[in-house]
């Protein structure tokens, strides 16, 4: 797994590459916590390169959703591959976070 993050004010876009499972969910949690800890209130996770996510990764997403909600911002996903989207749907995560086609659309939703 690799996370590449770009910042624009209080909005960050984190591009996640590779797979997130129980073997590296802790590292994913540390990556997102570090980003949110930098004063980011709104976090966009670009899933274009995300090949796989299990419930261990969903747990990390849930924590990040809570933390960004508490900070008055939020978390949005974009470029979600079909198979990952199905995991989000079955687990009810599409009700917890917005899903956009592109990172720009996701960023705009926070700018309004």
């Amino acid at each position, binding site marked *: 797994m690799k996370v590449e993050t770009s910042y624009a004010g209080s909005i960050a876009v984190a591009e996640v590459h590779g*797979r997130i*499972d*129980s*073997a590296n969910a802790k590292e994913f949690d540390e990556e997102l916590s570090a980003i949110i800890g930098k004063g980011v209130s709104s976090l966009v996770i670009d899933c274009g390169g995300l090949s*796989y996510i*299990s*419930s*261990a990764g*969903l*747990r990390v997403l*849930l924590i990040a*959703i*809570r933390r960004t*909600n508490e900070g008055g911002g939020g978390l949005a996903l974009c470029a979600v591959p*079909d*198979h990952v989207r*199905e*995991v989000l749907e*079955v*687990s*009810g995560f599409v*009700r*917890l*976070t917005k899903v956009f086609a592109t990172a720009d659309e996701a960023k705009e939703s926070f700018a309004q």
Partner: protein
Amino acid sequence: MEDRLDIEVGLHRDAPRKAMERFEQFALGHNLPMGLIFKFQLALDELLTNAVSYAFEDAEDAEVEPSISLALAVTDSTLEATVEDNGRPFNPLRDAPVPDLSLSAEDRRVGGLGIHLTKAFVQTLSYERVDGRNRLNLVQPIGAHSEEQR
């Protein structure tokens, strides 16, 4: 390519991932559709992760060497797997907490989500306790009529 593969999974945190790498090779070697491979892998990963995390929590009183195994088989019409451990008796199909997906992020608990996904992604799942082992059987149809093919 063999039609069967037996994997001794191990007990470490990264053991499920290593087993899933071997599953993927096995499944790709049989030209199974990617959508089916993804979902079946997720189901297996969740079951193995549960076993690694919880089956041997009371292991200090274990009289036998802890073990987790995965057996895979492909037939003309099905992909099948058996996940076994010799840890404490636990039937995840019956005993795992059922997540309430209608709750907000603040009220949600993630417990049970792995089993929820497993149930959603595998057509036939069964559990039995045999000779001191938890045994889960998974069967997924393959072939032209499978609606999950991509």
